[in-house]
């Protein structure tokens, strides 16, 4: 039945129409890639801090909703956890937003300050190599992957210049650099010691933490320790919440996905791309079938079954899906690179997402095909004599 690839030959015949169809499908593909890509980038950037903290189990206040809205809990809960078997060490972690003044143009902007004990770091060496500077009073480390509105701190520092600026009304010195990356919640990051942190946030009560980081002894059963911590801390005191690392990441992700409009907006954007693509492919296929109606009727008169003609339409839909997807994929990869360079967001073309968009593209074209084939039924062989 397929010695003559009628579907392909018919598509090829109308070159302009084919190009329009491919442009339309490519547009829909790009729209879906952009929406899904931004959504994933948002989630990935929102949790990059969580992922990079060296810890197995995390304590947060039950009232905390996200990194940008943390409530404090009593520090003694963290030290109590040391009494639970399997726990090796703990690190207190302070988080807060302070106002950073750009040292070159004097403009201010909110920046995330991460405070912890220099003797008890929560990042490994690859992210922060030297913690010695923050032992000095009012000295911070600056995230060189922060947005550029904070000033060319990285360049200045590399030129051996002393960078001093104002942070929430205190004069601070940049003592070093590290690299973590901006997120939707925080445009930039600073690291400093717990003592410097409390100097900055003078209104905070001593003994109140934002996050407690717990590391386990080698070979300890994580699930068991988690259960014991839940029983001894969470159940009895109710003023702390115990999370595994995945739970901590999920806590942040679910905030962005469900408690903000962002997840909805991006899904809606992708859905619009899907609908636009469906309409375009339907228009193209419908016109194509209408143009060939007399030919299809002839084929029916010759003894071709409806099934053959339906398969021709679906083959056309499938060919369009593949031919529209490939340029869309290439173009989107370029757009991702552009976005990554412009916004410091971690946006990459992943296999999973490219497969998902491919499946959506095929479904989109098949749906259009399913609507367009109804026209084939109109081809009446008795009309052509």
């Amino acid at each position, binding site marked *: *039945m397929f*010695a*003559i690839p*009628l579907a392909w*030959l*018919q598509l*090829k*015949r109308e070159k302009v129409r084919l190009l329009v169809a491919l442009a339309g499908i490519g547009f829909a593909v790009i729209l879906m890639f952009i929406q899904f890509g931004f959504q994933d980038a948002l989630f990935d950037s929102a949790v990059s801090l969580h992922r990079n903290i060296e810890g197995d189990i995390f304590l947060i206040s039950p009232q905390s909703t996200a990194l940008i809205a943390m409530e404090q809990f009593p520090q003694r809960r963290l030290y109590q956890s040391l009494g639970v078997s399997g726990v090796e060490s703990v690190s207190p972690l302070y988080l807060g937003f302070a106002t950073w003044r750009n040292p070159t143009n004097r403009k201010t902007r909110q920046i995330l300050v991460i405070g912890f004990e220099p003797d008890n770091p929560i990042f490994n060496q690859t992210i922060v190599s030297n913690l010695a500077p923050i032992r000095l009073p009012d000295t911070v480390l600056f995230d060189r992957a922060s947005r550029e509105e904070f000033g060319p701190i990285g360049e200045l520092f590399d030129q051996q210049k002393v960078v001093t600026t104002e942070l929430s009304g205190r004069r601070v010195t940049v003592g070093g650099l590290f690299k973590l990356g901006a997120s939707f919640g925080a445009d930039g990051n600073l690291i400093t010691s717990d003592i410097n942190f409390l100097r900055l946030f003078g209104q905070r009560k001593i003994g109140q933490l934002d996050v407690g980081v717990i590391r386990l002894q080698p070979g300890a059963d994580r699930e068991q320790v988690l259960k014991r911590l839940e029983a001894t801390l969470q159940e009895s005191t109710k003023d702390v919440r115990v999370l595994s690392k995945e739970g901590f990441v999920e806590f942040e992700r679910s905030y962005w996905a469900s408690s903000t409009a962002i997840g909805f907006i991006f899904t809606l954007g992708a859905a619009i791309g899907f609908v636009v693509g469906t309409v375009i492919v339907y228009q193209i296929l419908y016109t194509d079938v209408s143009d*060939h109606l*007399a*030919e299809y009727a*002839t*084929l*029916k*008169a*010759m*003894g*071709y*079954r409806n099934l053959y003609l339906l398969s021709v339409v679906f083959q056309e839909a499938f060919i369009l899906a593949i031919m529209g997807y490939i340029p869309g994929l290439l173009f989107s990869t370029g757009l991702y690179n552009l976005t990554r360079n412009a916004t410091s967001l971690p946006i990459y073309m992943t296999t999973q997402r490219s497969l998902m968009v491919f499946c959506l593209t095929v479904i989109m074209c098949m749906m259009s095909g399913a609507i367009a084939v109804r026209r084939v039924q109109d081809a009446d*062989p*008795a009309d*052509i*004599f």
Partner: protein
Amino acid sequence: MSQEPVIAIDRVNHYFGSGRLRKQILFDITAEIQPGEIVIMMGPSGSGKTTLLTLIGALRSTQEGSMRVLGQELNHADHGLLVPLRRNIGYIFQAHNLLNSLTARQNVQMSLELHSEVSEREARRLSEEMLEAVGLRDWAGYYPHELSGGQKQRVAIARALASHPKIVLADEPTAALDKQSGRDVVEIMQRLAKQRGSAILLVTHDNRILDVADRIIYMEDGRLSALETAPI
């Protein structure tokens, strides 16, 4: 030796429309066509010639009377039986109705694709042979829009006859052609049909081609009004 006729029509009536608008198109049609016979059907426009052709070709369902084509009763026949029957009938239309996206050779091959016993290579060879038989060997790779009207109609004949149908139904195949092309087309049809033993039922207004017929029948106002033997 008397053979079974390839087409046997017995008291067929046909109506269009329904209710008060119901109009009878064919009245009490009775006719037979023998294997290999070339029959021309003449008659004024609107007399029901084309309707009869679509009934024979299993493109419309027969409403009243008996219509036997290739031994198959079409009245009350299941739709599933009609489609395979169409594969044994060659159609030549007034407009050529070729597939514009396919070359001449591919157009001919489309009628062979339906016969699964023919391999692809064989189908290709047969298509080329058919085009040679209608004098278009050098035009096999051309698309319909690159061919003249007469050439297109010859491709249509090659397509209709490629699968050795027992019956060829032609509806005014020469209407859109000039005198010489029309003559060529009809002669090719006649020659190939005789070689292959196909019966031809040809509807025409064209007096110039009546001599190819074994028999001429007249249709007027939905009735087959006269039968006569063609001058040989």
